[in-house]
């Protein structure tokens, strides 16, 4: 039996009921297109929201916590060795947050192939002087190019150029909130007072908007060089080492490893931002559930049309069987019908879904906190299309299976006698 004849018979049957066949295929097409659009949109949003945190948060941050020494002088004394020594209100003696021999640490990390990149950072506590008022502020001294490359710093610059931080001496990128309060414009000179009481003049070369107003009121950025000058420290001073890993999920494990190895504090991104993971996980589950429900509904559509087709074409099935077609041939015919509906619907649906995604992607959407986002976010992940198509094909096969089995079991004698 050449399959092409079964296909010819299947095509003739579909053609005889082309309207219903088309409706079933359109059903699949719509559910697939909605599936990919929904997931693309939802994941786009997820990535955008997660990106607000994950993209610019170091996967692991190495720092020196200021802590009182666990070994107090009394513990060293031989006389009190046999006693429980309780010392209350211990204060740390050494206030230096500096990471010693950071260059060696960094070069070691650079050679670690689990690490994508490393950027060092320091912070300076300051007051922004605005007339008579002093506003609290924190200036982050960063390695600008690395910060842009590793932590998407550039995406949050709402005005000005981030590279000016390196090229213009004594320059600052102000948080949008702080800038608004101080009525500062690009090119203005502002003055800040450090905790040591020294005043500095800094030129505003840009504004920074993180999406969280509280942060934007306080945080500003300067080059690491400028910040060292503010702090009055030597030009090898580094207080934070920020690490971006190749694999985000390995952060907690590596954090522990580095903590032991470098004898520093290490904080991983999962510990720092636990709530974001859950949020996007739930959103993903909801959109998959809705998408799969759509596909299942269209599966019932296929099941219906096939049942109807079989009911209408009982005579045809009976003749095929009477003239020597086996039950399995009949089954193949109806599975083929079901699969053609499913596959054509799935392919067209994926295409339509792509067009719908393009449509959503073109709708203007401006969030004040996201200066680089002008339209709704869409994730064009090929995986949504693959999942949708595979699921649609599997579902069509199942939806076709039961009616096809029923068709293959039609007893020609009953049909022929029934006339």
């Amino acid at each position, binding site marked *: *039996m*050449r399959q092409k*004849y079964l296909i010819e*018979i299947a095509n*003739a*049957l579909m*053609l*005889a009921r082309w309207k219903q066949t088309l409706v079933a295929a359109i059903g699949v097409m719509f559910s697939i297109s909605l599936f990919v659009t929904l997931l693309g949109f939802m994941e786009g949003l997820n990535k955008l929201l997660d990106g607000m945190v994950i993209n610019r948060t170091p996967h692991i941050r190495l720092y020196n916590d200021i802590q009182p020494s666990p070994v107090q002088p009394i513990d060293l004394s031989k006389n009190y060795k046999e006693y429980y020594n309780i010392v209350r209100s211990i204060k740390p003696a050494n206030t230096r947050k500096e990471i010693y021999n950071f260059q060696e640490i960094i070069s070691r990390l650079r050679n670690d192939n689990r690490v994508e990149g490393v950027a060092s950072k320091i912070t300076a506590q300051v007051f922004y002087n605005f007339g008579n008022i002093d506003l609290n502020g924190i200036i982050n001294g960063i390695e600008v190019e690395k910060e842009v490359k590793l932590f998407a710093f550039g995406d949050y610059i709402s005005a000005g150029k981030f590279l000016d931080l390196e090229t213009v001496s004594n320059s600052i990128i102000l948080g949008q909130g702080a800038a608004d309060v101080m009525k500062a414009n690009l090119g203005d000179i502002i003055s800040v007072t450090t905790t040591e009481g020294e005043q500095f003049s800094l030129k505003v070369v840009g504004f920074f908007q993180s999406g969280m107003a509280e942060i934007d009121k306080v945080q500003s950025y300067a080059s690491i060089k400028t910040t060292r000058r503010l702090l009055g420290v030597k030009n090898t001073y580094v207080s934070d080492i920020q690490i971006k890993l190749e694999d985000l999920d390995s952060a907690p494990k590596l954090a522990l490893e580095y903590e032991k190895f470098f004898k520093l504090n290490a904080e991983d991104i999962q510990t720092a931002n636990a709530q974001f993971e859950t949020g996007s996980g739930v959103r993903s589950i909801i959109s998959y559930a809705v998408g799969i429900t759509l596909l299942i509904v269209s599966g019932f559509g296929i099941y219906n049309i096939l049942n109807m087709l079989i009911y209408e074409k009982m*005579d*045809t099935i*009976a*003749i*095929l*069987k*009477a*003239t*020597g*077609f*086996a*039950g*399995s*041939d009949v089954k193949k015919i109806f599975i083929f019908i079901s699969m053609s509906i499913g596959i054509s619907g799935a392919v067209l649906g994926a295409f339509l879904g792509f067009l719908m995604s393009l449509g959503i992607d073109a709708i203007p959407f401006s969030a004040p906190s996201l200066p680089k986002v002008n339209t709704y976010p869409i994730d064009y992940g090929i995986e949504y299309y693959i999942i949708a198509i595979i699921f649609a094909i599997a579902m069509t096969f199942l939806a076709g299976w039961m009616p096809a089995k029923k068709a293959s079991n039609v007893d*020609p*004698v009953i049909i*022929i*006698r029934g*006339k």
Partner: protein
Amino acid sequence: MKEKIALEARSINKSFYKPVRIDVLKDITFQLNKGEYASIIGRSGSGKSTLLYILSTMDTDYSGELFIDGITTKGKTDKELAAIRNEKIGFVFQFHYLLPEFSAIKNVMLPGFKLNKLSHEELEQNAYKLLETLGVEKLANKMAYKLSGGEKQRVAIARAMINDPIIIMCDEPTGNLDRKNANIVFNIFKELTETHNKTLLVVTHDLSFARKTRRIIELDDGRIISI
């Protein structure tokens, strides 16, 4: 000797159990030789159609044994029985039963597709010749649902013959034909038996038709009363 027998039934019994037990066929035993032209007659409800469905291997729910071309049908799977039907048996139903989705010639070719012994072209040629023999070659490319009853009947006969079967069974093939067309069908069958050594088994109510056949098997109340 064995090769001469096209079909053999050995004490076939068949009962229906719903709603009450009826024994429709009782101890049916007979043989048909190759080239024989036989008719089955009997009153309405005597079990003629039921017997034909069993002999054509479509109905397997009976006791007794059936040999087609010397091969028993006992213990064969549905698939094997379908293959036997496809290759060795041609069946013409009382109500023509063509596939309305296909043209007349495609309908004729369909069992040939399944048998898959000839190329598409050869099959088409054979189908056309058969339609010619039956005088409906002009309708070859007409869709089946557009044909008249008598035309459909002749196309159905052509379909029964396409795989060159050993035996052709018909359930009242002339039931809804006028006398002229019934005669045409009768003569076609006669020629098939005489010049092509085909075996024909025809269920009919038409006594004048039956009398012209070589052999009459008469059923009464599920029993053969004359062979």
